[in-house]
């Protein structure tokens, strides 16, 4: 393999190399610095005149005398069943002091697209034990459901609680966890690791760590490494894999950095126009495949800059993922954990995962009614702020109370409280029972008679 010392420009995370042999698009590159250390990169643009390489570990220390080698292959990850229980760097090297991973396979980290014809529609209910999710925005196995959070909100606790509690009812099988950290602080990472260790989850987890002080451009690799591992475990070893990606905002910043260095025409707020497509190549690596037992369920976490849901990062994510769980600073300030605002939250796949035989027969209509009632209560709060509660009718006051109770009793729960779906639904019925029965227009009579506390008491009396 030839070495070139023909770097003619270094710009941000990019190096420009001239007079090379023909180099393939997307090829892996190694750069040896004058001090003997090496860095890795990938070809972003190749022509007969010049090759542009993005350097994952950053370009610090690279000078025009550095030696560039084109490996003739694209970026791959060593995968093996023995990855479970291991901690790797953001680019896939073991950092837990353990042995090297003996690869069963070396997989390209750019996963090919799943043929839509090969997919199977996800419909198995995952009970997370969190009412605001199970009742209001139900998760199913193979779904990609992000958490839209803000800085300082307890998204990590929620992700951990889900990782601890997630189960498919009637199955003993536990999820394997692939955890990819991108640019989070060491403290945050420790929080995750400690919890994994304490609960024994680490044994069935693969951890990729790119921390805040690790190279930013490496973050472009990390989620792809994680998903490559997840696909291997799910589709070769039939595991149900839960992938947690945090924080996608840092990933997107790295993408923006590359784009700026290339002087591309920026899209909205400086993010590249292809960010949608790029994110899709990550988020779409979830789901079920016909004839394969394993599944990949994705939980990306992102912090919305300025708590703004219209910011390109949450916006493009929401356009790709199958819903979103939105956290609210207001609920957090009220001391409510988990501070999930159900109104902008959504699970697009819940309709197939709930109802008779999956959760419970009343769930669909119960859900409609709970949403309508809470939305009405929240609207009324705005009015109360102006005209005072006295100006409200009795009916309106009940809705107002409903909204409060909904947040305090239904949404609010303990970090270690694992609620059964029946418990969640019954709790909702208790709240609905505070409204006049005539208001429950979205629920059929038969369910009211079956589950409304008034009739249940009669039945048991």
């Amino acid at each position, binding site marked *: 393999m030839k070495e070139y010392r023909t770097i003619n420009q270094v710009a941000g995370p990019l190096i420009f190399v001239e007079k090379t042999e023909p180099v393939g698009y997307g090829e892996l590159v190694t750069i040896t610095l004058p001090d003997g250390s090496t860095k890795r990169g990938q070809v972003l643009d190749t022509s007969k005149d010049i090759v542009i390489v993005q350097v994952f570990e950053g370009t610090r220390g690279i000078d025009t005398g550095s030696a560039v080698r084109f490996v003739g292959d694209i970026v791959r990850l060593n995968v093996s069943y023995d990855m479970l229980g291991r901690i790797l760097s953001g680019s896939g090297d073991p950092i837990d002091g353990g042995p090297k991973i003996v690869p069963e396979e070396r997989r390209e980290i750019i996963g090919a697209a799943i043929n839509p014809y090969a997919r*199977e529609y996800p419909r198995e209910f995952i009970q997370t034990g969190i009412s605001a999710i199970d009742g209001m925005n139900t998760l199913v196995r193979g779904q990609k459901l992000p958490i839209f959070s803000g800085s300082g909100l307890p998204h990590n606790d929620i992700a951990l609680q889900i990782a601890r509690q997630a189960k498919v009812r009637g199955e003993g099988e536990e999820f394997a966890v692939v955890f990819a950290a991108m640019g989070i602080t060491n403290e945050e990472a420790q929080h995750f690791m400690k919890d994994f260790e304490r609960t024994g989850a680490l044994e069935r987890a693969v951890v990729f760590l790119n921390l805040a002080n690790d190279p930013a451009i490496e973050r472009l690799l990390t989620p792809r490494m994680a998903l490559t591992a997840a696909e291997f475990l799910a589709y070769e070893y039939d595991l149900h894999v839960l992938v947690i990606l945090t924080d996608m905002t840092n990933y997107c910043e790295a993408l923006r950095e590359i784009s700026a260095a290339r002087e591309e025409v920026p899209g909205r707020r400086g993010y590249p126009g292809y960010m949608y497509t790029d994110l899709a190549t990550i988020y779409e690596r979830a789901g079920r495949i016909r004839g394969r037992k394993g599944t990949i369920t994705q939980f990306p976490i992102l912090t919305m800059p300025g708590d703004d849901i219209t910011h390109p990062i949450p916006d493009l994510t929401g356009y790709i993922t199958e819903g979103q769980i939105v956290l609210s600073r207001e609920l957090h300030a009220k001391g409510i954990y988990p501070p999930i605002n159900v109104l902008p939250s959504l699970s697009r796949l819940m309709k197939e995962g709930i109802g008779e035989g999956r959760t419970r027969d009343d769930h669909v209509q119960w859900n409609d009614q709970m949403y309508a009632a809470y939305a009405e209560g929240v609207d009324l709060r705005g009015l109360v702020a102006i005209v005072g509660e006295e100006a409200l009718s009795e009916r309106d006051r009940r809705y107002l109370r409903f909204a409060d109770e909904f947040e305090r009793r239904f949404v609010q729960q303990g970090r270690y409280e694992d609620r059964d779906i029946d418990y969640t639904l019954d709790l909702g019925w208790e709240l609905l029972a505070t409204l006049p029965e005539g208001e429950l227009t979205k629920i059929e009579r038969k369910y009211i008679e079956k589950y409304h506390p008034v009739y249940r008491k009669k039945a048991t009396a």
Partner: protein
Amino acid sequence: MEVKMAVGEVYRVSGPLVVAEGLKARMYDVCRVGEEGLMGEVVGLVGDKVLIQVYEDTSGIRPGDKVENTGMPLSVELGPGLLKSIYDGIQRPLPVLKDASGDFIGRGIHAPGLDRKTKWEFTPTVKKGEKVSGGDIIGTVPETEIVEHRILVPPRVNGVITEIYEGSFTVDETVAVLDNGTELKLYHTWPVRESRPFREKLPPVVPLITGQRILDTLFPVAKGGTAAIPGPFGSGKTVTQHQLAKWSDTQIVVYIGCGERGNEMTEVLEEFPELEDPRTGKPLMERTVLIANTSNMPVAAREASVYTGMTIAEYFRDMGYDVGLMADSTSRWAEAMREISGRLEEMPGEEGYPAYLASRLAEFYERAGRVRTLSGSIGSVTVIGAVSPPGGDFSEPVTQNTLRIVKVFWALDAKLAARRHFPAINWLQSYSLYADTLNEWFVENVASDWSELRTWAMEVLQEEASLQEIVQLVGSDALPESQRLLLEVARLIREVYLQQYAYHPVDTYCDPKKQYDLLKAIKEVNDMFFKALEAGKLVDEIINVPGKEEFARAKFEENYKEVLEKAVETMKKALLG
């Protein structure tokens, strides 16, 4: 001097864009790139360089690799076998790709759009000695249980039939011969970027019945018309498009999943064969063609996908069918254009979109229409495009340029979606420029007072909106009684009429007659309420009248009419004695 040939070599690779040199090429020629022969299309010529957008992942392609020009424009195959198919953006059948490369889509796979082995039963409808020209029907093939595939003479071909055969044929066997020696087969090809010819455009005067109350009643689209559904994520674009694909009264549906989710295509694939067309009683899949170029599939093929779908739609139109084309989402197509344009280093326009964004959108929607076909029958293509504005902001270029062209605007509203009011179509913001023309049809075919009812409902909703502003300041108790009652009626219109759950087995589809009955009943209740008020009943009494719950749930029942009548009776007794 360099010799230009049909073979050249790669000079540069940048994502989906490959620059070739030493290649003789015209705009839009299809080329094969590299050893694997990745398919691409010429999108620019600069000096001696040829710019090619490649429909597959270009990893590993390097300068010096071979580039071949096929000399043909990007085309689709049109013939029996289209229905029930699912294709990628360049008409490769996804099941064939799966057979070739497994569950993940591999590279460099060539697959014709139409299967070469299937035999089709061909019955000629013309005889030897007859003169035929482009667009004429020479025979039929029963393609699915409900669709008769009419075999067309390719546009621009004409002559006298010298041979024509009856029997069982594959698509590329000759079924007829013309005096000039032209052999006609069950299929022909057509370049996707060129609209198929027809005799004349006809005025769109027949509504597309969608079975969705808010659409048919308030904002109807005509057969051959154009509509856009813009909305932020989660507001209901895809569900609305799926509803249209399921329940629209067209004979053919072409559904394009353009840069959206894989599972949404899977959903259609799993669901449509099980769903019954309310008009024919046969599975909906029998009339459907799917194009799936999902968000993670190559971006250049996404750009092509809308043209592939449109050409297939026009082809069925040319048989004299009404075709519905749904594109979800046109924004992803526009973004694909932007990405390629950026790589071409073209001068960017607004938000980085190419300056030709507006004209490309206009050209696309212009291919919609109700037409007299070359053979003299009437066919139509109705185009419904979803638009995904960043941040839900309708002032962005794709939404704005689309709204300048389309005649119907279904504005989705995140606020309505958040409170689970579905379809989350904002009734104050949306419009249909066909409404007046189509009124006539509804009056003639559904009910003589259709127009008045519709106007009444719109007025109540508008009145509600202005009253709401006051309520926000003073609370509803401060309103005069009659206005409080109006708010209650508006609520009935919203909750009973406008809300329609796509997943409810009965309410998912509502035929025009039922639409009318429901609205008429609400009007009746309105009149009753105001009469009771005049007679001295209190508003609270009226609002809490028994029978209202049953009334609200009537739409969920097969025998909704009885339920409505009974509920109205109950209310009447309580209020007017």
